[in-house]
């Protein structure tokens, strides 16, 4: 299963980005193969519509869960339709590597 995490940088030591639509990088983590992929967010500087555009970007990667600090008002209904699960880690300064570790300890 693929899980997207919003990140402030392009390495596993970077911290989670609290914003969804305008985060710096998306981390696509596959917990079956253990691979991580860092995608720069092309919508960081968007004036409008960064959230929905980002949803399309990560949905096209076949993600089933998204971890972020918060989600804007527009994106939740889109995620609901796409049946993608949202996970909010508010006020968190966890590193990407730490979040991946939590996910791996799930079972």
């Amino acid at each position, binding site marked *: 299963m693929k899980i997207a995490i919003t990140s402030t940088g392009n390495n596993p030591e970077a911290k989670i980005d609290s914003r969804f639509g305008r985060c710096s990088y998306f981390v696509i983590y596959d917990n079956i193969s253990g691979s991580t992929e860092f995608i720069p967010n092309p919508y960081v500087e968007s004036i409008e519509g960064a959230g929905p555009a980002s949803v399309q970007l990560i949905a096209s990667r076949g993600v089933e869960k998204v971890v972020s600090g918060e989600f804007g008002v527009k994106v939740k209904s889109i995620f609901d339709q796409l049946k993608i699960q949202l996970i*909010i*880690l508010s006020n968190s300064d966890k590193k990407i590597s730490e979040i991946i570790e939590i996910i791996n*300890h799930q079972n």
Partner: protein
Amino acid sequence: MPRPKRIRKVNTPPHFKGYLPIGQPEEHPVILNFEEYEAIKLCDYLLYSQAQASLEMGVSRPTFTRIYESARRKVAQAFVHGRPIVFEGGKVYFDSEWFVCNSCGCWFNQPEKQIKVTSCALCGSSEIEQYNGNSILNNSYVENC
């Protein structure tokens, strides 16, 4: 043009799709809206007064009574004629989809409503509880008209 309907708040949608009468054909189902299901749940299961229940769903007391009346009539139709009941549609949004994990402190939701949430989506802990306050995302709703 009539005034548009207010969006009704439904706490937890049912975890299954409906009912079938024993020994009857599965045709001509009665469509029970989610708001009607919620009205029966609040009034007859949780034993709220209609005034309390209307506050819970974010509609006026007379509107609640109309929803509840319509729900009872539909259920009676299904019982008398032996028709299936299907939960579907209605002008609603689901508010308490959010869950809190007491182990890792995260919030998560479950967009697939047929699945019952038993463990945290992030850490897998079973120490979760449903969030019952106001929605953390404002204006978020699902409309199935």
